[in-house]
């Protein structure tokens, strides 16, 4: 058995979870999750009726712009929301146990051992006045009940496994002595320390260089595979999730607007927002000075309630119906859900787009036509 295998250790405290091998059904099951915050302007509806499942050892990508509620979603799943001014409803089941019904003192025993999270900014997520070593061994000692030298040895193995050279030396460093990529590796080591079955990674590579980003993503993928751990990868960059996830959910204004197997999502995009997001990214294959297809406007204010589809004001396909009725999530083939009245490359969608182009709707005009090369 590898020194990193969590089964080597007894769990020191907390409720005993049935081992994952013996269970049927998905690992994580989120049902009709709502999270809203009280603010000066009323309630901010950050997550509105999100439902999805993640199978054991699978990787789900959650993609959305800033303010789409994706970070609040991960925190709602973990149970890391502030205690006041927040309302959460719906259920989050991990291996069949409802986390929303658990007291924080019980939930705490699952953090690290069953589920772990990696935050966006490794600079602020690590404690600046505690050496890296103690931050890695903390959960090993408290959750797994290892003694000092066992924890030290395990931490060394962990740091080596996330690609940190000279781990002995790094254990004695403070976070500020490490580069951003190194700190993110330490964060990953801490998250993996107790062998979680579910890893949530919230923008793990934003702010890192492309070369380091590729290294970190490869590291996460390798860890996921070796430990048959489920991974939820949250990002604003479709490119990050494109070749590293089994499934992708696209979020907009607190809702999932499209979800499909990764290849399916790219090949058979239905939701205009997903399409617009893909097209707004500069492509290496395009010649330089290709005009980008920006999505006009910006995400809606989540503190106001408007009827209809939240993407309607920016959508090239928008029709009157979109402004009046919220489109429900519909099924388009196995595992593919989308919320749109006039889906991409459907007869009604094409018609809607053509009508908007004819009427000179700016979003539609900017969206169609061959990519123009700037003079």
């Amino acid at each position, binding site marked *: 058995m590898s020194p990193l295998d969590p089964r080597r250790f007894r769990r020191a405290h907390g409720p005993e979870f049935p081992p994952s091998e013996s269970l049927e059904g998905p690992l994580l099951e989120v049902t009709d999750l709502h999270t809203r915050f009280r603010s000066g302007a009323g309630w901010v509806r950050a997550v509105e009726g999100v439902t999805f499942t993640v199978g054991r050892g699978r990787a789900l990508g959650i993609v959305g*712009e800033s303010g789409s509620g994706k970070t609040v979603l991960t925190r709602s799943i973990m149970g890391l929301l502030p205690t006041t001014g927040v309302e959460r409803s719906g259920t989050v089941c991990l291996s069949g146990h409802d986390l929303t019904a658990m007291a924080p003192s019980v939930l705490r025993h699952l953090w690290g051992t069953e589920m772990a999270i990696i935050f966006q900014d490794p600079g602020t997520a690590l404690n600046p006045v505690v050496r890296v070593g103690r931050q890695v061994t903390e959960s090993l000692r408290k959750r797994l009940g290892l003694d000092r030298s066992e924890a030290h040895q395990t931490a060394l193995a962990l740091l080596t496994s996330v690609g940190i050279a000279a781990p002995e030396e790094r254990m004695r460093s403070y976070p500020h002595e490490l580069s951003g990529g190194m700190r993110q590796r330490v964060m990953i080591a801490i998250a993996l320390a107790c062998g979680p079955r579910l890893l949530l990674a919230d923008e793990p590579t934003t702010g890192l260089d492309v070369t380091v980003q590729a290294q970190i993503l490869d590291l996460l993928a390798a860890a996921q595979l070796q430990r048959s751990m489920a991974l939820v990868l949250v990002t604003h*960059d*479709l*490119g990050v999730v494109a*070749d590293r996830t089994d499934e992708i959910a696209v979020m907009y204004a607190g809702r999932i607007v499209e979800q499909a197997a990764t290849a399916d999502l790219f090949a058979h995009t239905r939701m205009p927002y997903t399409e617009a997001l893909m097209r707004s990214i*500069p492509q*290496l294959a*395009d010649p330089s*000075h290709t005009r980008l297809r920006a999505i006009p406007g*910006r995400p809606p204010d989540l503190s106001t309630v408007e009827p209809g589809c939240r993407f309607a004001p920016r959508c090239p396909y928008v029709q009157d119906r979109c402004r009046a009725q919220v489109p429900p999530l519909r099924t388009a083939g196995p595992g593919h859900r989308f919320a749109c009245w006039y889906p991409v490359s459907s007869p009604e969608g094409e018609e809607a787009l053509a009508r908007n182009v004819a009427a000179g709707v700016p979003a539609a005009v900017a969206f169609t036509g061959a990519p123009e090369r700037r003079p």
Partner: protein
Amino acid sequence: MTGSGTAALRGEDALLRVEHLVVEFGRGPHRVRAVSDVSFDVMAGETLGLVGESGCGKSTTGRALSQVVPPDSGSVRFDGVELTELSGRALRQARTKVQMVFQDPISSLNPRRRILEAVAEPLAMWRVGSKAERRQRAEQMLEAVGLDPGVVGRRRPTEFSGGQCQRISIARALMLEPKLLVCDEPVSSLDVSVQAQILNLLDDLKRSHGLTMVFIAHDLAVVKNVSDRVAVMYLGKLCEVSSPDDLYRSPAHPYSEALLASIPQVDPASGHRSPALSGELPSPTDPPSGCRFRTRCPRAEERCAVEEPELRPVGVQHYVACHFPLARPAAPAET
């Protein structure tokens, strides 16, 4: 990669000509050569893209252009004037023509200032026009960057998103009608959808205001989109200078190739290329001898440790600083 040498320089008529630029920080054993003998030029109306990892000296180079960070040696010739020799009022006057846009749009605006005041401030400092005229110019400029001055003018930066703050920063940078705009990672903190808006805006403004740009970024796809010429930097030196289409089709430097390979591709059908680059940037206080990239280079040989490669031509307007450049496809028919 260490590319010293001036082979990539073109004629004397360039708007900006940087030769043997050196910028150092710190003292004693901690002295860091952030920029180490870099030479390049930018023709009027051109956009030069400067790419590289964090710590490669690209931001320092950008700052040294407008003498925000005074260079230790080398020359920065802008529009016929040697900027390194100027000081005091003459330098400030010259700087009005070289403006900067920074990475973090929110912290580059004074949170207590109202937007209209912040945008009009450059004019107020140079006492251009009356207060009403300055106000009017600021309103026009806000409109030019796609904001409604009636709505945003009285507000403060905290009320805006990153993308909007970046538009405001761009408006402010253009108030004194600069000839050269140095953009230091202007879109790297923005969402992809907003990023596309800002890139299109910069391109529109470049044409409408006759701007020349130095565009600093770590995202190669973004750089390719905006640039007429790309310079790749590593650890304070230039490794490759080329037209963007040529560089992306046939990179000559192993580092450029590795950078290209690490870009995540949106199309999963394109297949995942694993990064050819391992490890991190070596410490700039004690850079490797010879070619600075050799410690991470898959093609490194003994010669790379002893002899520093100089920039030399490998194609039409394509220069590389490498002893063993990658083979190029036969005769690219490019102008």
